[in-house]
């Protein structure tokens, strides 16, 4: 199966350094169309007004966390099937399970490398 690398990716993180790193890594694995949001509210507004093929979101944000964003996305009729990858330093089993129950497509623990990012995107997009 050929992966469509022309999809638009939304990177959500309240830490500017991290959005910049993820966007650069995406570029290096040939995903050149990316936008970013600094929190869940901004992300939701962009998702509802734009046409995105994938969300890569941090969990630990305020006031709307990545988990809250995921729940909003899954509750939205137009967005509910959107592939959603959670990228976070939080690696407690109960939180991973909570994210999975909320419908996350995959979960990456920070720090991660470009290969892990590519692998998870391919896996998620294969099931999209």
């Amino acid at each position, binding site marked *: 199966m050929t992966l469509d690398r022309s999809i638009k990716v939304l990177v959500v993180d309240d*830490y*500017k*350094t*991290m959005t*910049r*790193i993820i966007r*650069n*890594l995406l*570029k*290096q694995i040939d995903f050149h169309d990316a936008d970013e949001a600094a929190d869940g509210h901004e992300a939701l507004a962009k998702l509802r007004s734009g046409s995105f093929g994938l969300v890569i979101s941090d*969990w*630990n944000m*305020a*006031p709307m*966390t990545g988990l809250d964003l995921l729940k909003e996305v899954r509750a939205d009729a137009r967005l509910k099937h959107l592939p959603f990858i959670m990228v*976070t*330093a*939080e*690696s*407690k*089993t109960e*939180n*991973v*399970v909570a994210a*999975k129950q909320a419908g996350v497509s*995959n*979960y*990456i*623990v*920070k*720090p*991660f*490398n*470009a290969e*892990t990012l590519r692998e998870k995107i391919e896996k998620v997009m294969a099931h999209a």
Partner: protein
Amino acid sequence: MPENSDISIAHLRGDLTATAASLLQELDSLGRIISTARAEVVALRAEGLDQSVIPSATDELAEIVSHTAQATHDILDACEQLEALQGVPPDKAETLMTATTRIYEACAFQDITGQRIAKVVTALQLIEARISKARACFVPDPTSSHQVEPAMSTVLLNGPQLPGNAISQSAIDALFD
């Protein structure tokens, strides 16, 4: 508690039952513990632990986060300039890309260390608040309105886990397979 309380207790012992004398002895010990604790709290005030030492330490940690963030952005700027180079021979271009990828991956340290430092700051603020409350109990200071409430959020996660407390990426992958 008066210093001659042992003498007083010994003097009273003949008039008390064994249980009452034992209870009195316990109260005497408790009084000494409270007296010592009070002296320790007064010493904390003299050392300025809650009013200067801890706030200063949290400021220093905030500066570390700020400086490493700036340094990381500078590194990323340089990396993006390297990536934008034109006319690089293909074999060199591949080496360049591998190197810049490794730099991007390594720069994630700033996010992780920032979260770890934030956890330490929260812990320090909690200690600061507890010391302030203890001091207020023992040594009321009418001129001080300094009450620090730690920014503990129940909605946010705990951040990076220490090795041994964390679940690995491969264990997480198993949950999704």
